[in-house]
């Protein structure tokens, strides 16, 4: 029953992305931006290597503003239009709702990512790349998008204003992306013990993503990403429940 409810929410959400121009705008911008970055900034041709490193390296940065834009409507719009009242008075717990919405948004990101396939064809036509590494690059990119989505969905649940949801989501994603750099760590080094600073540093999604785009999936990275998504969704459910009592 819960599985079917999750699937029902998933289907409705995914369809609603494509019922509005949102989906098409996001996908076109994503495709145009990945293309532009890969060839002009990443120097795809100049590098003279048959791989997609110059393609994947910009994904986390593009996701930083595109993924919160995908996630911002998940809950904020339901709250603004009042449909949250329709949804939350159905005989369904809040977790199938949270999960169904998240998976729909994640599937949407997957679709956008798959539509970059021409670059994969291009690199295979030009040279002889290691397609295993490319597949891992795609998986890694999709996992990072999942992390950002889970964080963005959480932020969407706390407000009915989509702009607020977007800005908070982007800021939170930035913190997780950059937690390995000195700018963020310095804020902790002043007062926190070393192990905590190391812990924060280990949250750095960019470090994890670097491993993935080399074609490996270290166990720590897999565990970290799944834990991050799971925790964010759990917090998301708590926020949805708390709003009923608050």
């Amino acid at each position, binding site marked *: 029953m819960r599985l*079917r409810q999750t699937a029902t929410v998933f289907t409705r959400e995914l369809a609603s992305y494509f019922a509005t121009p949102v989906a098409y705008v996001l996908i076109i911008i994503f495709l145009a931006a990945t293309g532009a970055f890969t060839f002009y900034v990443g120097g795809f041709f100049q590098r003279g290597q048959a791989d997609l490193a110059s393609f994947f390296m910009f994904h986390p940065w593009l996701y930083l503003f595109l993924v919160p834009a995908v996630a911002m409507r998940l809950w904020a719009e339901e709250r603004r239009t009042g449909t949250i009242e329709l949804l*939350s008075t159905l005989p369904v717990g809040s977790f199938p709702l949270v999960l169904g919405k998240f998976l729909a948004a994640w599937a949407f990101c997957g679709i956008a990512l798959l539509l970059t396939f021409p670059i994969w064809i291009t690199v295979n036509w030009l040279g002889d790349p290691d397609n295993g590494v490319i597949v891992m690059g795609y998986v890694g990119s999709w996992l990072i998008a999942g992390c950002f989505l889970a964080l963005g969905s959480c932020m969407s649940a706390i407000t009915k204003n989509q702009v607020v949801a977007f800005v908070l989501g982007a800021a939170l994603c930035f913190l997780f992306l950059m937690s390995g750099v000195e700018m963020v760590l310095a804020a902790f080094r002043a007062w926190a013990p070393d192990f905590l600073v190391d812990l924060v540093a280990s949250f750095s999604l960019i470090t994890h993503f670097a491993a993935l785009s080399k074609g490996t999936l270290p166990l720590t990275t897999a565990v970290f990403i799944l834990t991050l998504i799971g925790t964010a969704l759990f917090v998301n459910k708590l926020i949805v429940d708390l709003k009923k009592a608050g």
Partner: protein
Amino acid sequence: MEQAVRLDQLTRHFGRFTAVDRISFGVRRGEVVGFLGPNGAGKSTTMRMLAGYLTPSGGRAQIMGHDVEAEPLEARGALGYLPEGAPLYGDMTPLGLFNFVASMRGMTGATRRHNIATVIDRTDLSEVAYKPIETLSKGFKRRVGLAAAILHDPPVLILDEPTDGLDPNQKHEVRGLIAAMAPDKAIIVSTHILEEVSAVCTRAIVIARGKVVADATPAQLQAYSEWQDAVSLRLPAEQVAQARTALAEVDSVYDVRPMNRAIDGYDLLVVPVQGEHIAKAVADQLAQAGIEIEDFRVETGRLDDVFRKLTTMQPAH
């Protein structure tokens, strides 16, 4: 018969503000309860707690014996709820929405198709079933919301201002639907339109400042009105003062008030002592005093008058 809806000391705070203050009542199947109160009295908050959208701060509520907090899914399963303003997914079609709601409520295959066809027929939505909801008129949207609420043929129906913002024809239709479903369901309808209460409700519960201030049949409420059995008089202008003096002597007359002829069409309102019928006494007294009556009308109770009295009374401590 067991009560289908039961509220026991139900309370809800928002910060330091108490929106609903220890409300208790029960509703049986077959009853249509008009839930009345001024804006901000706590009607929607009470209904939202019953529907599971808000968590009660205190007290208990049960739908068909299921506690809304301990067994939320069972309680919501037995309930059809139309939120205030009937919010709907604008990008879906009515058919898409019904399929979504049916699937979330666990209906499959033939049952789902049968139920959807039944509500579309019942709410007369077949002509718009494939149009996006955002393109529909307000009346259609409200009917779509109502249809989604009754899709699973629930024993309990809670409708928050179902006719608000509709034109008179649409109001009539929605009331007809409610009346048709009334015999085997427990229905709670919130409204601030008082004619609706006499039109569809078997019972009226008035709340003010989060408390129940009256719980009676519409006829009983009407009888509280000082207009009940009052007499309106139209008299020659020079005899009005004389008539007031004469009528003040009648024992069963509680008060004689001037009315504005230009606005009300009458000069005087003679208010009886509660429960007295004064028409004959008034007519006799005026005849005796030699006053010529141009027009004479026996009034019936006015709900808006009772409503105002009940909801503006100072709280009793």
